């Protein structure tokens, strides 16, 4: 993958080389990692980090599980499904408290709420967990069209409905003058965390590395949301030419507006945090709709000891 590493400084203690596999091309939704990279936060904790851009076939779970890379970026539901298939991956921290995944529709279509999706066609990633939840838990009957990563069909058809990132597609369709609405999946109670994770075996052998990576990443994310993003955005833009400044500004704006990264402090949420109770609920829910091949326990996928003290404390305080 594309190696985005910080320029090497002078003679420092030997750094531990690790690689992070993201789930898509470089974008603001990975901004915290790039921020930590360009600001040298990883280097400060003794890590020489390479960020592998993802893409349609990034397969971060497989890569982490086989040891091809050390850390992966994804969602908790993906991790639980993997655990259900006997793939031992452990979540370390959350880059987003709220998942930006949403439903994109034309306002003219008369969709106001999730139940209005009943009987419609929906372009979405085949086999996605949230799709099953909408179908099984909410009893919606939809025909699904496999995701093609494009928007032209949406724009051409006022009745077309598709999955989107709230930080992403609405920018382009509004640019083209479409009156698009979105429904955030988390508003339907579908609330996976976006996380970084590693394999159980790596964790056992290198707890310090995992801890350091987690702390530096959280620092990077905090800084990306609150501080000066210029360098990180420049890196993102150079890695993925689609990421022009107006678009990044839009994306980050939405992330801020919906508090995707930091969550709702009034509920005790904060950057990096994973709440064991919420994760346990997710396990229960996924077990109920039958997407877990075998029973999964919280301890299989989650070890809170890797989160920094302050973050852990915030969850407990809630």
């Amino acid at each position: 993958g594309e190696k985005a590493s910080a320029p090497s400084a002078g003679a420092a203690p030997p750094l531990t080389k690790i690689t992070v596999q993201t789930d898509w091309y470089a974008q603001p939704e990975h901004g915290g990692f790039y921020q930590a990279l360009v600001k040298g936060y990883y280097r400060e904790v003794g890590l020489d980090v390479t960020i592998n851009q993802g893409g349609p076939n990034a397969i971060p779970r497989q890569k982490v599980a086989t040891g091809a890379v050390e850390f992966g970026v994804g969602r908790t539901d993906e991790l639980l499904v993997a655990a259900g298939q006997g793939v031992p991956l452990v979540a370390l921290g959350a880059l987003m408290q709220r998942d930006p995944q949403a439903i994109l529709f034309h306002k003219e279509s008369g969709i106001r709420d999730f139940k209005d999706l009943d009987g419609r066609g929906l372009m979405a990633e085949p086999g996605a967990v949230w799709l099953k939840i909408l179908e099984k838990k909410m009893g919606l009957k939809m025909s699904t069209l496999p995701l093609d990563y494009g928007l032209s069909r949406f724009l051409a058809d006022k009745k077309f409905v598709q999955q989107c990132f709230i930080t992403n597609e609405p920018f382009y369709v509004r640019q083209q003058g479409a009156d698009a609405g979105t429904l955030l999946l988390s508003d339907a109670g579908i609330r996976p965390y976006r996380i970084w994770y590693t394999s159980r075996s790596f964790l056992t052998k290198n707890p310090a590395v995992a801890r350091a990576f987690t702390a530096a990443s959280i620092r990077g994310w905090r800084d990306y949301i609150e501080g000066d993003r210029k360098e990180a955005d420049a890196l993102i833009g150079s890695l993925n030419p689609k990421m022009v400044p107006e678009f990044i500004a839009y994306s980050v704006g939405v992330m801020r507006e919906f508090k995707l990264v930091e969550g709702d402090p009034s509920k005790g949420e904060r950057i990096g945090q994973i709440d064991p109770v919420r994760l346990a609920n997710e396990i229960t829910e996924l077990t109920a709709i039958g997407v877990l091949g075998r029973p999964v326990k919280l301890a299989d996928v989650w070890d809170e000891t890797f989160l920094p003290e302050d973050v852990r404390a915030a969850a407990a305080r809630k």
Partner: protein
Amino acid sequence: MSTTSQSRLAACLLPALTAVALIVLWYAFKAVFRVPSFVFPAPHEILAAAWDERAVLWSAALVTVRGALLGFTSAVTVGFLMAMALGFSPRIKASFYPLILVLQMMPVTILAPIFVLWLGQGLPSIVAITFVIGFFPVVANTTMGFISVDRNLRELFVMCSATRAQEVRYLRIPGAMPYFLTGMKIAGTLAPIGAIVGDFLAGSAQGGVGGIGYMTISYFSQLKTPALFATGLVACVMGFLFVGGVNWLHWRLLHSWHDSMVKKE
């Protein structure tokens, strides 16, 4: 007599032996390199997954086989007619061959949204995509067959004052059969793939069950790797049926005269 039955036995036994050898290698490979099953499952796991998911796979296969069959038929028919037109006159060839190449070389991912827009989501678009993927091998081969016709036989037809149409019907078409059948064999292996890609780009699913292409992504995202490979198994079975059909046709049409079939005695 005994040599024929021997060679027939060999024709059945050898692939079986290779398959066994392959499976042994497969297990050995998995054991030696400790390849986990979610990356590369063992044959028995694939079979077990195929059995577990048989209902889903069966209905998915039915969806896909329809697209593959229609796409294959249209690719072969249109490809053949197109090659006939191209072989009919060098002018037609000069005019249209580049166009056919363009259609062939346009990535399907670009064409798919257009198809979907014109033909709607579902079977027609899937068929169109399968068609686009399968028809060029038929055109290329059949055209080559048409222009490779023995020049002496061509002179015979000239002496018979055969019309262009007669020459095509009685000389070029039968003479191009060995090429045409080869193109058809390639189209046959591409048809299931085409239908799967088509399903991926223009299919739709009800209640989480679509065609094989849909199931492939679905199993993939669920990390159900053995089931993913089971979809591959289904694709292969489909492909073998197509190729088997073409081989049968090959035998039917060529065994009495063509060098590829006639045993020397």
